[in-house]
């Protein structure tokens, strides 16, 4: 048995880690939408449900998720949520949206209901303009009342107004808090690591095996590893908020649009700080 520490939140499929003590985030998709059984199986260990596809739009399904935290994909059918809005308001949803041509429209639509949006960092953005338009919306839309991640958390780091977050925190890839279990029983940090063949081990291993695995040890001290490996990331001006996250799995991952977006975010913070410095009463 893996016997994960209690403070770990494991992203699993229904039926996995039934005898463990850790918290769980249960992945659902059109092949398994039995939320009642999952909720009964894991009870207080259940942290949230994650939907891997649009199946949450099945009639009546959201009604079964009352008072639950749910992570939903903002795919092509996202605009259908208007028909489920009464039920959705009884849950705590966070929508994950890919940075494609429809991003701003999706953000506008989802935030119009007061729900949170999280830009999917696993998928390379279609263009820098798409990201900067989303950032501009986050920074300047006076009607916005809900966080858009990762901007919302990273802004605190950049402005030094709150806890220091990096993308490893916002993307749920903290070795001390997150574990991913694949459908085949491989244990990894997250889906993107597993999908690239990078696993800690498997469900056959013990936690002692996992936390002494080379990958786990490297990821547990990622900043030190980047320095040791003389990674280009250590020279990046956004090391404090990215800390090598974007290129961690694939060194060729195109992070330029994000770099440019983070530049604009820092410029906006600097500008706001200058205004506040010159107008201390405000």
């Amino acid at each position: 048995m893996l016997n994960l520490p209690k403070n770990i939140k494991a992203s699993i499929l229904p039926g996995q880690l039934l005898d463990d003590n850790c918290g769980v985030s249960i992945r659902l998709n059109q092949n398994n939408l039995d939320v009642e059984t999952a909720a009964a199986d894991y009870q207080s260990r259940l942290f949230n449900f994650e939907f891997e596809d649009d199946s949450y739009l099945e009639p009546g399904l959201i009604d079964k998720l009352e008072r639950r935290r749910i992570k939903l994909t903002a795919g092509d059918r996202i605009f259908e949520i208007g028909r489920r809005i009464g039920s959705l308001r009884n849950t705590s949803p966070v929508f994950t949206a890919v940075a494609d041509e429809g991003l701003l429209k999706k953000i506008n639509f989802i935030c119009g209901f007061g729900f949170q949006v999280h830009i999917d960092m696993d998928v390379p953005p279609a263009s820098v303009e798409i990201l900067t338009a989303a950032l501009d919306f986050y920074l300047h839309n006076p009607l916005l009342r809900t966080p858009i991640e990762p901007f919302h958390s990273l802004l605190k780091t950049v402005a030094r107004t709150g806890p220091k977050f990096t993308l490893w925190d916002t993307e749920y890839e903290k070795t001390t808090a997150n574990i991913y279990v694949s459908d085949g029983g491989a244990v990894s940090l997250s889906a993107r690591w597993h999908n690239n063949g990078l696993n800690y081990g498997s469900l056959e291993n013990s936690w002692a095996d996992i936390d002494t695995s080379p990958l786990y040890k490297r990821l547990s001290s990622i900043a030190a590893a980047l320095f040791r490996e003389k990674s280009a990331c250590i020279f990046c001006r956004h090391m404090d908020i990215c800390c090598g996250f974007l290129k961690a799995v694939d060194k060729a991952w195109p992070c330029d649009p994000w770099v440019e977006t983070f530049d604009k975010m820092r410029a906006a913070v600097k500008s706001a700080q200058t205004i506040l410095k010159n107008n201390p009463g405000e």
Partner: protein
Amino acid sequence: MRGDFSIVLIPTFACNGACSHCFEKISPQSVNREEWPEYFSRIKELANYKKVDKLLLYWQGGEVMMMGARAIRKALEVCADTFSDDGIALEHHLQTNLLLYDRKWREIIARYFRGNISSSLDYPNLYRVTAGLDCAGYVDAWFEKKKQAEADGFVVNIITLPNVSTLELGAVEFYSYFKDRVGVSNVQINFPFPGLDSEKPEPLKLDRFADFMEELYQVWVDSDRYLNLNPFYALENRLYGNTGRLPCCWSYNCADYLVAVSPDGDIGQCDCWVATHTDYNFGLLGRQPIDEIFTSPERGRFLNRPATMINDPDCGQCPYWMICFGGCPIRALSFTGDLYSKDYYCPVYKRIFAAVIECGQKGDRENG
């Protein structure tokens, strides 16, 4: 899910008015005295289907007072009896032109409408008339009745439609009229639209109307917001207090929480639709199962509107989407013939939103 649901009750299409800008199809059609129990049992079915805690019933016409105080009292009693056993709270609202108000209505309004009357008055009055009263005579008669209602202890609230002459008079004059001359506390500005076969009201030039509304907002702010002037009052509450409900034209989808019921049980989106755009009606209460009415393709057209509007190039990128959602369906259809077009008043709304937001931001600065 439990919550509120609103029904615009239209117990009659009869009206003593002959207003040239009215969108309603006036006719003698009314609910008969013996039909009330059936009528309200259907309304109750509807409320149960929607699983509501509270039902808001907006009594409109036609002109409700054309039915007579005795008939309406009876209707309200039947309504109360019908709902007495299932825990749904009822909240009645009355919309009337007031011209038939007399003391016979006193007990009804006090008891069922919590002493509140909603009426209509335009400034200047270009369109509101009756068979015997021209525009000026109508206003005089209205003032007389308003005075009477207030003497009976009631609060009269105003819905007003700006017209071309309103814009010529300007915001200061308009505001002063309602504040000082009419002397009411609650005024709601509605955005006019043409009826099906009517050339009235004369369309407002959007840039002039936007100028007017922007100026009116400033006049209102400068008067320390003396009146509860909507849409400004609701908009500020929503934006800065996160409270209250915006006018229905700026709700995500009016189809989620509102229908209108005609005297014969026809169900449509609201009073603007049910008699005049019958091909958009959802069904007939009492003749069809409720779920068939609420899942009808006709209602689906309304439910799908915001999801369609977000794909409009302007709406999808619009910074005000979160309080507008493409605006009002009747104000889209009436001006363009297309339900899935933007509300005609989009440029006016944008100017209003910008003015209110700018004022709030300035206020925040001034308050430190």
